[in-house]
């Protein structure tokens, strides 16, 4: 393999692109953090300081803002339901894909991916109508169902590659040693797959936590945090937005940090 940046000009270009890309991602995060721990005055003030005096005024204001606590609670409930549903539905599907031969298997895999290509806005109106009809409108479980739909393809494909990576013989040897299929799964496969399943669980949580479109459309009173922030965006002071932004970003950051070890293998195998 040739090294990227064989000549010095290439190396320079490569380095510069890296710096730009990093700034592109990190600068907003930096501003978000800094402004969240600044006083409201500092947020509006100029010039900025690189390190503000740490103050929790903004965060406290955000926390005490009417409706934030409830919205945050709703977000957590929705995300936990999404997490549970995705794992409970997605893991068996991933296992089935990895271990069984059946008719239409490849079609099924493509369909799983295709659901991600389907634009949610197109689905929004019919979904809202159906939800109104069956009484799921403005409920957290209703939102969680849509979020599960968004997270499920990843859960299926990630657990699929996870189970593929666990040799079939490990299970088979357990069967010959007196295990039922389920016992072999529980004693042999599950312990080996647990870290990966945990990673995809956290991923489902983050998908739900960050989703705004469906949450905003399907709820009126029981809003999740994203829906709440979007709706009160116009009327709320700017430091509220910063604090809200940080709260939204934080779980995703924690997630990436926690599962960074898996990220590459997940993408690499999930696209196979």
């Amino acid at each position, binding site marked *: 393999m040739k090294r990227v940046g064989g000549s010095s000009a290439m190396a320079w270009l490569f380095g510069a692109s890296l710096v730009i890309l990093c700034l592109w991602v990190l600068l907003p995060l930096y501003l978000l953090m800094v402004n969240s721990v600044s006083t409201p005055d500092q947020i509006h003030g100029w010039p900025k300081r690189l390190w503000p005096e740490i103050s929790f005024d903004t965060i406290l204001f955000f926390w005490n803002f009417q409706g934030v606590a409830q919205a945050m609670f709703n977000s957590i409930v929705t995300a936990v339901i999404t997490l549970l549903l995705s794992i409970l539905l997605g893991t068996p599907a991933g296992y089935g894909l990895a271990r069984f031969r059946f008719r239409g298997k490849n079609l099924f895999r493509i369909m799983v991916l295709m659901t991600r290509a389907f634009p949610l806005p197109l689905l929004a109106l019919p979904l809202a109508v159906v939800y109104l009809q069956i009484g799921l409108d403005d409920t957290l479980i209703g939102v969680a169902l849509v979020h599960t739909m968004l997270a499920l393809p990843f859960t299926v494909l990630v657990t699929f590659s996870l189970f593929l990576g666990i040799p079939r013989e490990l299970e*088979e*040897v*357990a*069967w*010959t*040693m007196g*295990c039922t299929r389920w016992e072999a799964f529980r004693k042999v496969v599950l*312990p080996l797959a647990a870290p990966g399943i945990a990673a995809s669980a956290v991923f489902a949580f983050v998908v739900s936590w960050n989703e705004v479109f469906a949450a905003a459309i399907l709820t009126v009173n029981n809003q999740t945090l994203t829906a709440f922030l979007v709706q009160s965006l116009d009327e709320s002071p700017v430091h509220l937005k910063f604090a809200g932004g940080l709260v939204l970003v934080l779980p995703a950051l924690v997630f990436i940090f926690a599962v960074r070890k898996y990220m590459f293998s997940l993408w690499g195998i999930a696209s196979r």
Partner: protein
Amino acid sequence: MTGISVAGIQKRFGAYQALTSVSLEVRDSEFTVLLGPSGCGKSTLLRIIAGLEYADGGTIDIGQRRVNDLPPRLRRIAMVFQNYAVFPHMTIYDNVAFGLRTRKTPEAEVRTRVMRMAELMDIGAQLSKYSAQLSGGQRQRVAVARALVVEPEVLLMDEPLSNLDALLRLQMRAELKSLLQEFNTTTIYVTHDQVEAMSLADRIAVMNGGHIEQYGSPMQIYSRPATRFVGGFIGNPPMNFLLDDHHSYSRQVGLERPGKAHSLGIRPEDIQVYREMATQCWPVKVGVVECLGPMQQFTAELDHQMLRVTADPDLALHSGETLYLRPDPAKVCWYDGEGRMLPV
């Protein structure tokens, strides 16, 4: 008494016929080896016996019990896989104890049996380690220990030695042989290595293209190959086959031959080599000469047909010279046009 009786087993994978009506009888405490080239269906047959794969037709009995519809866990078997399949998330102790624990053996008994097995397999020092900390040979021992500790009625092994390097394989082969003689377990052992098969087996089933070509003792298989395939697969170098449809070569050396004979087969070491013209000999031209230490091998051309011959190491051989060969009449086998052996 745990014999294995397999009758008329068939298996298709899609349009591909992997097994065509395979039948096999393994007697109690017999060591049977399934031998054949890669892809001939050995593993498929073994997995069907283990219950890891369903047959499309035929019956399997283990110890007078019809097991066709039983899951692997109820077939009273143990299996050793080529890649050992040692559970990576358990210590070696827990690996060996696994089968005993799923059968609800009291923990005190688990302990004594695991310890005894560990001593027997020389893995006592590894018991608290994990699979990743072991060498290939040690993993192999763990896999065998784990299978034997439950004292199975039937032991199935799928190329258990083929992932070891040559020296270790030789050593493990000898150990395995004495171990299994001691345990007296009915065993089916899959390999594509003919030396392994010859040295381990009570009986060898030579497979080819989804069926069994011959099932017999190593000596029967070697000296009386039932088909040309078996003769050509077993032996290094393999059996020579001489096309003799006009009866000219057999008459030349004074051999009686069955009427339908199409070709004659003779092992390289069953040919006498003469330097001087003698009666009832094939005059041949020497091709490549290879000295292998205890003996030498050379290729001999007889009217555009090639023979491989084993000769004494002190015989001076020169490429291109003419020699005279005479096959041992008692060792010659006759084959018909389809390659099946004919009775003399």
